[in-house]
């Protein structure tokens, strides 16, 4: 069994819903070192020798298997950059669960920059879940700067669920994707900021092959004095379909900047963007109050639903 303290276990539950050692392949990184790792018959996890990070190789045709690579940090002042590369073989069908939880009870900033690259083989399907979470009463900030690069071969599909709901003081999230013919990318991002938090999320998706399709949807809530910037650019270099949507609830004194962008370089690139920012409708609160909730309970329920 892994040797983790209660804080580390709590972080692990928050970012990966893990209560015990996961099934399948995994690597659990705690305070900058691996505290548990397992490869399986079809999934090999190899530590890198030149930089900190892992190489994860998934054999072609691997079906219904999972990889968990959560990161927890509970020592104040840690700063790290981790390079993880995923090679997903042709026709594989896997779930990859990443995520980082930082508990900072000290005065120094803690920072984790995860650089993830996905090389997705022909016809493969990947579901990628990434949760970010921060806690702790210290004045040191909790900083996460994930970079995600996705290279999709023909007819592959990737579903990404990116969640950052609580406690991360500063984040700059960069996601790039390049899709070959027939490939499909679906991104669902959920973000909530509060206090004086600052979050920037930038997407650049390049649809390079015929019939490639991307759907990038962000739902966010900015509370108190926080700031969010969402930039999503979809580039159509072939006959393709692209859609990006940013839907935000603004509260208190928060600020939100949404910058959707589309670039069509061929006639048959069909690209759509939608962006909406607004406060919670008063009627929504009133309706839930008539059902017995208090005003603040109603507000929380509306936000919970919105970020579901």
């Amino acid at each position, binding site marked *: 069994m892994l040797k983790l303290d209660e804080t580390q276990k709590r972080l692990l539950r928050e970012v990966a819903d893990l209560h015990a050692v996961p099934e399948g392949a995994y690597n659990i990184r705690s305070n900058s070192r691996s505290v548990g790792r397992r490869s399986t018959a079809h999934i090999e996890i190899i530590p890198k020798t030149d930089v900190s990070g892992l190489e994860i190789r998934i054999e072609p045709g691997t079906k219904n298997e999972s990889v968990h690579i959560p990161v927890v940090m509970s020592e104040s002042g840690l700063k790290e950059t981790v390079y993880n590369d995923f090679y997903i073989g042709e026709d594989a069908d896997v779930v990859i669960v990443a995520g980082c939880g930082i508990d900072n009870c000290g005065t120094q900033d803690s920072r984790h920059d995860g650089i993830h690259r996905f090389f997705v083989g022909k016809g493969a399907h990947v579901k990628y879940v990434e949760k970010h979470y921060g806690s702790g009463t210290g004045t040191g900030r909790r900083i996460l700067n994930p970079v995600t690069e996705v290279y999709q071969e023909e007819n592959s599909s990737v579903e990404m669920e990116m969640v950052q709901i609580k406690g991360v003081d500063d984040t700059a999230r960069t996601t790039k994707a390049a899709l070959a013919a027939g490939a499909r990318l679906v991104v669902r991002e959920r973000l909530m900021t509060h206090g004086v938090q600052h979050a920037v999320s930038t997407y650049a998706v390049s649809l390079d092959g015929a019939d490639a399709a991307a759907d990038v949807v962000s739902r966010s809530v900015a509370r108190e004095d926080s700031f969010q910037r969402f930039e999503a650019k979809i580039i159509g270099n072939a006959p393709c379909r692209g859609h990006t949507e940013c839907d935000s609830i603004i509260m208190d004194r928060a600020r939100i900047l949404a910058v959707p962008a589309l670039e069509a370089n061929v006639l048959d690139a069909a690209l759509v963007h939608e962006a909406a920012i607004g406060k919670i*409708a008063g009627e929504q609160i009133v*309706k839930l109050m*008539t059902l017995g909730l208090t005003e603040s309970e109603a507000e929380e329920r509306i936000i919970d639903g919105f970020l579901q």
Partner: protein
Amino acid sequence: MLELQNVSFSVADGGAEKEIIRNVSLTIPDKKLVAVTGPNGGGKSTLARLIAGIERPTEGRILFRGEDITEKSITERAALGIAFAFQQPVRFKGIRVLDLLRIAAGRQLSAADACAYLSRVGLCARDYIGREVNASLSGGELKRIEIATVIARGAVLSVFDEPEAGIDLWSFRNLIEVFEDMRKTIRDSSILIISHQERILNIADEIVVLKDGAVERQGRREDVLPSLIGTSAAVGSCLAAESGEGKRSAC
């Protein structure tokens, strides 16, 4: 059950005060269905919102089961047993029909219990339970879900603000049966419906006619309705007249 005592409500209109409700005194008796009708702009919806606590009277008092609730909030009134169905149901992104019914019931309803409420309003429950209460639902569907949330409250006083508004006659015909059913199963509760529809007025025990913010008439249906037939206060329709033919949607 509910008593309005000399209730007035004004809003600022430019520099002047505009009186929407004028010195209304009204009693909703126990175990009765009371319909409030009258011309558009007469203050009917405002009256309903004053009862639910969404608006507060500028003058007068509101008593609920003998308790003065004039200063009580919407939430407090809900806790006392007042439920309110909006004329235009509110949409929510991400909140499912099941979630809304659970909030309304105030407990972790099972899917089967939630389905029972939806069936009462003529919705095929399994098609709806997991759907979001968002723009993908039609006006008629939203109206039924709105009514189901009020039923799920198990309220002492249920207030419906123009249930016929915003839906087609076909949907309305089916909806009438829901209210007929509610009328039959009234126990220790009362129902107040704001409506112009003759068929709703037809199932009321009492009718209140509100005009220019004041009660013009109030009395038993038999006494009040005949004088309203053919006026804008009691709108009939060919579809609505085919009373027996409205069918609940089958599951």
